[in-house]
């Protein structure tokens, strides 16, 4: 007997009520949103429930939505995988652009430690309770969180990239 998405939805709504919402099937992954302050409880429930058994955290990452309202500027996305039934789910938690804080799940899944560090590195999302929230991929001296849309992707120190040599100007003077 395989794990049905309706069963996941029913169990979550029964336990967490209105903190879990926007259930939908995105491609072949069952997805939903959660209230950011309930994330640890929900992840722990999904991991330990004897029928749900989402025992593996595939990924944690961030998304920046600069056009959203302030309270939904950032989202943290969690992918979980049930190895027994080979079932995957995607969880989204939206957080504020002014205080992008969310509780860490590295106490539940130790593998989240580095993934949360990476999310902090690139988006500046603060994982409350993380044991070692510092940069992991970028250099320590960096001050920006480069995947935020307000920071430029290109390096300002580039000296050989003159638009005239690439046919990007009209006059070519």
């Amino acid at each position, binding site marked *: 007997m395989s794990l049905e998405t309706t069963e996941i939805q029913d169990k979550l709504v029964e336990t967490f009520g209105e903190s879990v919402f926007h259930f939908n099937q995105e491609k072949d992954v069952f997805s939903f949103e959660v209230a950011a302050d309930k994330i640890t409880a929900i992840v722990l429930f999904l991991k330990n429930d004897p029928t749900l058994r989402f025992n593996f955290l595939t990924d944690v990452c961030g998304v920046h939505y600069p056009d959203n309202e302030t309270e939904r500027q950032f989202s943290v996305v969690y992918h979980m995988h049930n190895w027994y039934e080979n079932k995957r789910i995607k969880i989204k938690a939206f957080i504020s652009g002014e205080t992008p804080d969310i509780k860490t799940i590295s106490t539940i899944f130790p593998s989240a430690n580095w993934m949360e560090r990476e999310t902090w590195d690139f988006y500046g999302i603060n994982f409350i309770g993380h044991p070692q929230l510092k940069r992991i991929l970028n250099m320590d001296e*960096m001050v920006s969180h480069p995947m935020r849309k307000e920071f430029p*992707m*290109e*390096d300002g120190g*580039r000296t050989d990239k003159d638009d005239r040599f690439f046919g990007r100007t009209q006059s070519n003077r």
Partner: protein
Amino acid sequence: MKMSDSNIKMVAPPEGVSGEGFFATTLNDVVGLARANSLWPLPFATSCCGIEFMATMASHYDLARFGSERVSFSPRQADMLLVMGTISKKMGPILRQVYEQMAEPRWVIAVGACASSGGVFDTYSVLQGIDKVIPVDVYVPGCPPRPEQIVDGVMRLQDLVKSESVRRRSSPEYQELLKSYNIK
């Protein structure tokens, strides 16, 4: 066997005065000749240019012909630092440390577009050319350059080494150059 029958190519002697049993030339020329024909490379290979360098070192292109037989994986015994590939900003200090560990005289070749200018990686994480952190003597263009181009780069460096004064490394200009990179 006479020397004229041998297939071994010798480096031509520098300009000088020769007579019965003696040959006189300048110290600069002798030292330059010796240095230029025993440039021990230190490959700092981070991506595809490094693969091209492996071909350059192997039997077909045979960089050993130029006296670069002995690849040194310790900076202490190397003369010529070959930086091949994208250098991220996080790796910049490490590259600099490797350069600082090399003994004088030392030369640097930036092989390929990434090492020379950052290449296609005009982005926040990539160093826009290694000359932002260490002085470079020869730039080899290409993405990646063919082994012939790398060999040509080494030959251009040999030209530089041959004509370099033995006093250059203690000259004020050279000290100024190192100072501009904040090295020692």
